């Protein structure tokens, strides 16, 4: 291979789109030709620079929600179909629910379902207060265990309010926070027999965090003094871990 051939395949080589044989020839030539090596290095540098600084944008939160809710409206007739089929025969209904619920028993699925229900507007907050004192006394009246409002909302997160829900037949406090354009649900419940076998584990500062991704939401769960805490959001895993470890 000579210098002019290298020039012909320059970008295919840099872009990793050249075939193996061509790559081998060029690499051999670069070892022997410092001039071509310089040209390739320079182009690679430019390539990195463009890739690193190429404009990237996050979709606005309201747009994402609007799209998702429109899709759900289109979807509705199908849900009715499920009910219609259920009417056709008890066996059919039982079979569907068996298959369906069998795949959605984990605590992560339940939490993602609850979070999703809130995002869709199917459920609303029972108390919307940013005053943690008022929230705490409301919690006392609702729960049969002691729980205080988690205090990470002063780190760029804003507390919206709380509601009580059922996760796997456990009475659960659900706090809703906003962080930037994302909404975070924080679920807290008594941590006895929580099945975490399938979740991904991460160790940080002597604590174990469990991750799972369900329905397009990321979840993180950890256990603190017999209370399981779980955050569900469209935030990335690292952001959730950051929130959880505060």
């Amino acid at each position: 291979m000579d210098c002019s051939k290298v020039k012909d395949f320059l970008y295919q080589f840099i872009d990793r789109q050249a075939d193996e044989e061509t790559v081998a020839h060029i690499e051999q030539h670069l070892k022997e030709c410092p001039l071509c090596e310089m040209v390739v290095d320079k182009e690679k540098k430019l390539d990195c620079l463009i890739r690193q600084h190429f404009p990237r944008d996050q979709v606005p939160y309201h747009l994402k929600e609007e799209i998702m809710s429109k899709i759900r409206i289109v979807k509705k007739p199908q849900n009715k179909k499920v009910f219609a089929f259920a009417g056709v025969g008890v066996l059919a209904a039982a079979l569907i629910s068996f298959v369906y619920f069998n795949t959605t028993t984990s605590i992560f699925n339940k939490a993602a379902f609850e979070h999703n229900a809130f995002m869709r507007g199917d459920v609303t907050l029972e108390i919307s207060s940013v005053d943690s004192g008022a929230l705490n006394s409301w919690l006392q009246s609702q729960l049969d265990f002691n729980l205080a409002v988690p205090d990470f909302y002063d780190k760029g997160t804003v507390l919206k309010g709380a509601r009580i829900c059922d996760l796997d037949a456990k009475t659960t406090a659900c706090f809703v926070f906003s962080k930037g354009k994302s909404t975070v649900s924080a679920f807290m419940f008594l941590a006895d027999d929580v099945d975490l076998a399938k979740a991904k584990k991460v160790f940080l500062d002597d604590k174990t965090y469990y991750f799972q991704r369900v329905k397009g939401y990321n979840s993180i769960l950890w256990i603190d003094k017999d209370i399981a805490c779980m955050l569900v959001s469209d935030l990335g895993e690292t952001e959730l871990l950051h929130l959880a470890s505060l």
Partner: protein
Amino acid sequence: MFEAFKSRKKDEIFEEELNKVINLLYSVALRMTRNREDAQDLVQEATLRAYNYFGSFKLGTNFKAWSVKILRSIFINNYHKKKREPYHVSFDDVSNFVSLPEITGVEEEILQEKLHYAVDSLPEDLRIALTLFYLENFSYKDIANIMDIPIGTVMSRLYTARQLLKRSLFVYDRKKEQ
């Protein structure tokens, strides 16, 4: 009965897939339209169309490329002011009438902004090819499929786009070396 179950599953899969690509769709739409409002409309239209056609999408194949292709076809049909452009644009052709901003700043922070402006100043076909390549690292073959052009044309568009960008980044580069 199983049909209903399957479509329910498929809805979930669609939402999951959409969550993964929606930022990419929006970023590409912004580079196409260069306007936030149009980009938002475009993304909305493309995702709803993708949902309606999701039945014909083969699970396990490239959802990213498929959804970007839908986005592009809507852009071409609805947002694209039909102006006659030469089919093949060579570097010499465009370098005469496309004036790119010169990058004179040396600070890293403003490079992004300058590059943003330089990319948005490129002719549309070059801009789209470059965006697909750098935002998502789509292969030449994927880009050819999305843009409905031969691979050779993808390569020449990327080549020309890079030469134009290089010109606007050149001053930056020189200063750094001194």
